[in-house]
């Protein structure tokens, strides 16, 4: 069967199966297990109402526990074994990894990414959000800056590889250098700084996200606070930094952490730009180097990423619980 046909069959089975499951399970529950018969009608209805939510959430719980919760344990367990998975070596993979230069470079670069990308994307996002706030063509401008969000990381890498191309007739950076009579350079091979050229691709893609959220937050600021500041003689910069920014600080934090989490997941850009060469490796791409080759090492790297993400996870849960009260 051709894959596309298989796809449609899967949609039919998936959607139809889900609908059938929900309908049938509710039917069985009401008709056979706890039927609202006359003798203990009230008790059976109450019981059915206790069971029903679980029918609704069961498929989701199934996917979540099998595909997201089990792997956290499974990965940790696998990371305690050697490459072939036969010999238990405790924290051997971790010890080996931390002693290697390659991993330390990846960890260092990832720290750079985590510092630079969220900061730059939030900065540009806030800048655009503020600048376009009262602009007539603001929505058009925002739409253009938002556009890279729709592009795949691979596509974006290709777009920027073209900009960085080491040929003044192709890459616009080297064309500008050529204009000033400078030799063409391959920016992806300049040690250390090449990281920033790669990171900028991520900034380019995530600025739109930051802008959309922060723009909505800026709109939500009570007009009176700004008017009061104007009457008190505040200049535009004072209004921005002393009135607006403090009021949207919680949103800035949310944007910042969301981008931080993303940065810890994305291996595509480094993979497509340099393949991790020239000291540009980061943890997700470092992990992919070992995927299919050394599962013990790959899961160990994944678990390190998991540990880095955990504080954000805990913080998110605390926030969500607070909001629910």
């Amino acid at each position: 069967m051709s894959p596309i046909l298989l796809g449609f069959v899967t949609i039919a089975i998936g959607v139809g199966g889900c609908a059938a499951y929900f309908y049938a399970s509710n039917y069985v529950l009401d008709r056979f297990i706890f039927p609202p018969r006359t003798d203990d009608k009230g008790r059976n209805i109450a019981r059915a109402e206790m069971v029903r939510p679980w029918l609704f959430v069961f498929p989701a719980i199934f996917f979540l526990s099998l595909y997201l919760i089990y792997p956290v344990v499974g990965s940790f367990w696998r990371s305690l074994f050697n490459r072939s998975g036969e010999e238990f070596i405790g924290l051997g993979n971790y010890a080996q990894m931390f002693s290697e230069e390659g991993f330390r470079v990846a960890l260092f670069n990832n720290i750079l990414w985590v510092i630079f990308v969220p900061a730059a994307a939030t900065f540009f996002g806030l800048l655009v959000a503020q600048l376009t706030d009262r602009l007539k063509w603001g929505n058009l401008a925002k739409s253009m800056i938002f556009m890279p969000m729709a592009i795949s990381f691979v596509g974006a890498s290709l777009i920027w590889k073209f900009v960085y191309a080491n040929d003044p007739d192709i890459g616009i950076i080297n064309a500008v250098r050529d204009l000033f009579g400078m030799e063409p350079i391959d920016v992806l091979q300049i040690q250390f700084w090449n990281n920033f050229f790669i990171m900028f691709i991520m900034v380019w893609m995530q600025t739109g996200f930051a802008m959309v959220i922060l723009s909505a937050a800026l709109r939500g600021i009570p007009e009176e606070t700004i008017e009061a500041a104007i009457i008190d003689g505040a200049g535009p910069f004072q209004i921005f930094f002393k009135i607006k920014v403090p009021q949207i600080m919680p949103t800035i934090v949310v944007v910042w952490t969301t981008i931080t989490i993303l940065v810890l997941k994305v291996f595509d850009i480094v993979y497509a730009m340099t393949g991790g060469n020239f000291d540009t490796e980061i943890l997700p791409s470092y992990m992919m180097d070992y995927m299919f080759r050394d599962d013990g090492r790959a899961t160990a790297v994944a678990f390190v990423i998991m540990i880095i993400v955990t504080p954000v996870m805990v913080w998110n849960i605390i926030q969500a619980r607070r909001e629910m009260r």
Partner: protein
Amino acid sequence: MDNIAGQKSGLSIATNLSVIALVLIWLIPTVGLLVSSFREREQISESGWWRAAFSVSQAYRVSPSADGAVQDGDRWVLEGNLFENEEGAGSGTVSGFGITSRDPSAAEPGQTYARYEVFVMEDGEQDDTNIEIAYPADGQPEFPDTDEDGNEILSDPAPVFDRALTVMENGDFRYEDVDEIDRAPSVYITAPQPPEFTLDNYEQILTSDNMDQAFMNTLTVAIPATIIPIVVAAFAAYALAWMDFAARGFMIAMVVGLLVVPLQIALVPLLTLHNQVGIGQSFLGVWLAHTAFGMPLAIYLLRNYMIGLPRDIIECAKVDGATDFQIFTRIVLPLSFPALASFAIFQFLWTWNDLLVAKVFLPSQSDSWVMTVKIADDLLGSRGGDWGILAAAAFVSIAVPLLVFFAMQKYLVRGLLAGSVK
């Protein structure tokens, strides 16, 4: 609010200018690649895309027929027009010419380019070498004092004529040689080529580079992986929003926590699991994986939206005897359309653009490559410098997401605003 106090017009100009600058920086890379995808591949390497609208100077080798060569004194002479029998040699205007492929623009039109054998003093010994000089067609050659290596050129013995070529701008030429011209001489010219835009690049990647197959594979992955999680998540979101049960708070917290779990952690255990249960690396595996990975965001977005629906409607329906199943399918689901659309766009963009899950859960044979894998693992390597092909491939892969993006931007923005943990 345009002219409130504190808003100065100077500031407004600065604002406009900086927004223009930012928009340009954000757009230029994409526009550059888009323009390049429509250019002739030879033109791409000759000039930058920002000059795509102008002619490109290209080198051609022309071999005018040797018929009609006549002897004139001690020289053989061939005259004619270079463009007479040549197809595709530029626009019919010569911008430079030469007699070697090394330097096809050694002389300008209207000049004579001649090769002489000259005698030089090298290390105190007399030697001979060839030099080429350009001079006005109606003038006489002036020999330099030294040759390329810095050796002195002697005026005695005098330089000996070897051959000369005169070319006019319109292609008229006169070729002189000391030997008999019995076969077509090679003339190298540079001629401006008008800008040329084609669909050749697209045609090539879609027909001979198998990008069409990759496109179908991407579509095959993305559509079920978008629809199935919506159905599963919608039921769960309804339960978490409107049904009362003990573990509800815990489950909501769990979903929020799972939002940030890195996918990397799931790869090895799940691939092992898939292999054990016989799914292996297949489309089914990708669909299951995408369904699960999209689940936390789907539940979170949909629950946040559903909880905002008016309580009255749902309670009225309950009073009227509707079951939860009926309330869900008849009332909540239709009312939640905006949230469903938001998530569908997210999940579609994510699955369409995904590289990681496709690389791990799909077979590694080329007939099941999706476009991202095709570009990253194949084209970037095998077509490294061929920017026409790469650009076209990139735009085949990003055309659909861009279309979805511009058509459904409203829902995307709404989803983003609802989805970021506040």
